[in-house]
């Protein structure tokens, strides 16, 4: 794969940031956008704009078709069985809230348990916490091992007959650990427990096959997947979308309304209340086409090579401590530097145009467990190169220089 060409497809890299070439290592936070995606937004607003699904005029019909085309593209991309298993949300956070809220309403009662892991992002904890308050449910946490991984056994250990849902990340946004979600799903299903996967970090980097994985819910953040902000996707098996109550109420999701009551629309409308993020959905179709063009296998190879290279380079750098050491690791390199706080690292790196993130990355429970108030994190995307890693390493050395004064 001609990776140089891929970087060229992202306009931001042809601009200087504070007189530096941008070394963007914050893709786990949000990815940059390829030209085709930005162009699609521009063209849609300037030549084709209309709201979808409501009016019968030409532009509205065309927009509606484009909108539904993305649903089908996404269905195929993740090999879902039915396009109506794709629900557009405002983000992965909303997708998880949707499931926790509606599943909680319908199926949970006091004493029921939800099983999470210590790796979970706040977005896959707070929505369940609400049910602790409103329904009196319990939350259990599968524990990480010393490499920052979650094994099938650590999940199995926490399952009991009160377990009503297992909600786990696909790929940790801190340690990079890739969880055995297919095996976990098989285990869970053998005990009749549904599985939600927080796929924020999985979807942009790993080949997805919903029918193979078998999970019940999979939450995706489009802005991390070379798509626009303000858009997420909930994949959910049709039987769940049919069984669960609707989430938000409003225009577009109803069938009949009168003063006494309401009947709700069929899928996918039931979960898409109000005017949706039309332009973003349509532009996200281009993100999927972009990914398809490169090929997810090529992306996996490229990124796994880069991740290995990054691990090597940083390990060779004595003062760097990598956070976690999972065997099956996605494109995240979290680290600490002796005696230098991650925020100081991020500021010094930024001066060289190296953009990383410092903090707890919305994983406070994990950081508590690791005994680290904060970590520095370099995370990769399809556009990154070995040169980017080398620049990261150089800038890390600069931190050491400055602090050794």
């Amino acid at each position, binding site marked *: 794969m001609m990776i140089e060409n891929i970087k060229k497809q992202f306009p931001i890299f042809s601009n200087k940031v504070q007189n530096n070439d941008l070394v963007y290592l914050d893709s786990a936070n949000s990815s940059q956008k390829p030209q085709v995606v930005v162009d699609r937004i521009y063209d849609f607003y300037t030549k084709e704009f209309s709201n979808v699904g409501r009016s019968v005029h030409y532009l509205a019909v065309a927009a509606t078709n484009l909108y539904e085309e993305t649903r089908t593209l996404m269905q195929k991309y993740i090999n879902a069985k039915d396009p109506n298993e794709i629900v557009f949300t405002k983000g992965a956070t909303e997708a998880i809230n949707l499931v926790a809220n509606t599943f909680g309403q319908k199926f949970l009662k006091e004493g029921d348990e939800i099983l999470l892991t210590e790796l979970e992002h706040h977005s896959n904890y707070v929505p369940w916490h609400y049910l602790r308050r409103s329904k009196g449910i319990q939350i259990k946490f599968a524990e990480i091992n010393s490499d920052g991984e979650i094994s099938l056994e650590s999940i199995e250990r926490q399952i009991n007959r009160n377990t009503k849902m297992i909600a786990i990340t696909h790929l940790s946004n801190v340690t990079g650990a890739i969880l055995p979600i297919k095996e976990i799903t098989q285990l869970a299903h053998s005990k009749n427990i549904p599985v939600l996967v927080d796929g924020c970090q999985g979807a942009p980097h790993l080949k997805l096959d919903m029918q193979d994985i078998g999970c019940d819910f999979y939450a995706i953040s489009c802005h991390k997947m070379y798509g626009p902000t303000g858009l997420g996707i909930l994949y959910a098996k049709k039987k769940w979308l049919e069984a669960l109550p609707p989430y938000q109420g409003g225009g577009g999701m109803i069938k009949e309304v009168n003063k006494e009551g309401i009947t709700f629309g069929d899928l996918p409308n039931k979960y898409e209340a109000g005017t949706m993020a039309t332009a973003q959905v349509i532009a996200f179709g281009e993100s999927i086409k972009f990914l398809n063009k490169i090929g997810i296998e090529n992306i996996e190879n490229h990124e796994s090579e880069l991740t290995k290279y990054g691990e090597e380079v940083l390990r060779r750098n004595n003062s760097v401590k990598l956070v976690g050491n999972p065997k099956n690791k996605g494109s995240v390199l979290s680290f600490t530097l002796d*005696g*230098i*706080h*991650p*925020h*100081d690292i991020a*500021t*010094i790196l930024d*001066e060289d145009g190296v953009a990383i993130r*410092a*903090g*707890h990355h919305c994983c406070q429970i994990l950081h508590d467990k690791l005994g680290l*108030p*904060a970590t520095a994190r370099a995370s990769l995307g399809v556009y990154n190169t070995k040169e980017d890693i080398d620049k990261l390493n150089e800038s890390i050395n600069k931190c050491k220089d*400055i*602090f050794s*004064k």
Partner: protein
Amino acid sequence: MNLKELYQEIILDHGKNPRNLKKSENFNKDAKGHNPLCGDKVHVFLKIDEDKKISDISFEGSGCAISMASASIMTDLMKEKNEKEVKELISDFLDMIKHNPELKSKNLDDNEKTKLMSLSGVKQYPMRVKCATLAWHTLTSAINNSQNETNSEKLD
């Protein structure tokens, strides 16, 4: 060069070896501060005497070099100052860190001024201003007996 201005020797020294990093005995005022953005935390302890003078001041917390140095320098300077002087100094510092090139206060000797001015490089790093001001806002809360945790993200 900018970074060198930010990470001056004084800051690195105070950042690595913060002064007054403990919980004062017999403190009679205290307050907690927090910067949710980066997780910096500080807890300031004061002993204010009947004549309104600070007879002891200390802090506990964790954070980046800037926030630790700022708390360390602040606690050093505040000792033996009375409430009015403290408030003046706080607002002088906050002005300096955000807008002014210099400190206006007449209550500081040259050595003290140099120490404080060492934090002025932060001005060019808007995201780090909150680190430098956290301890100072928290001190204000302590003096005012505020029960709310100070959130420097909201204040700057």
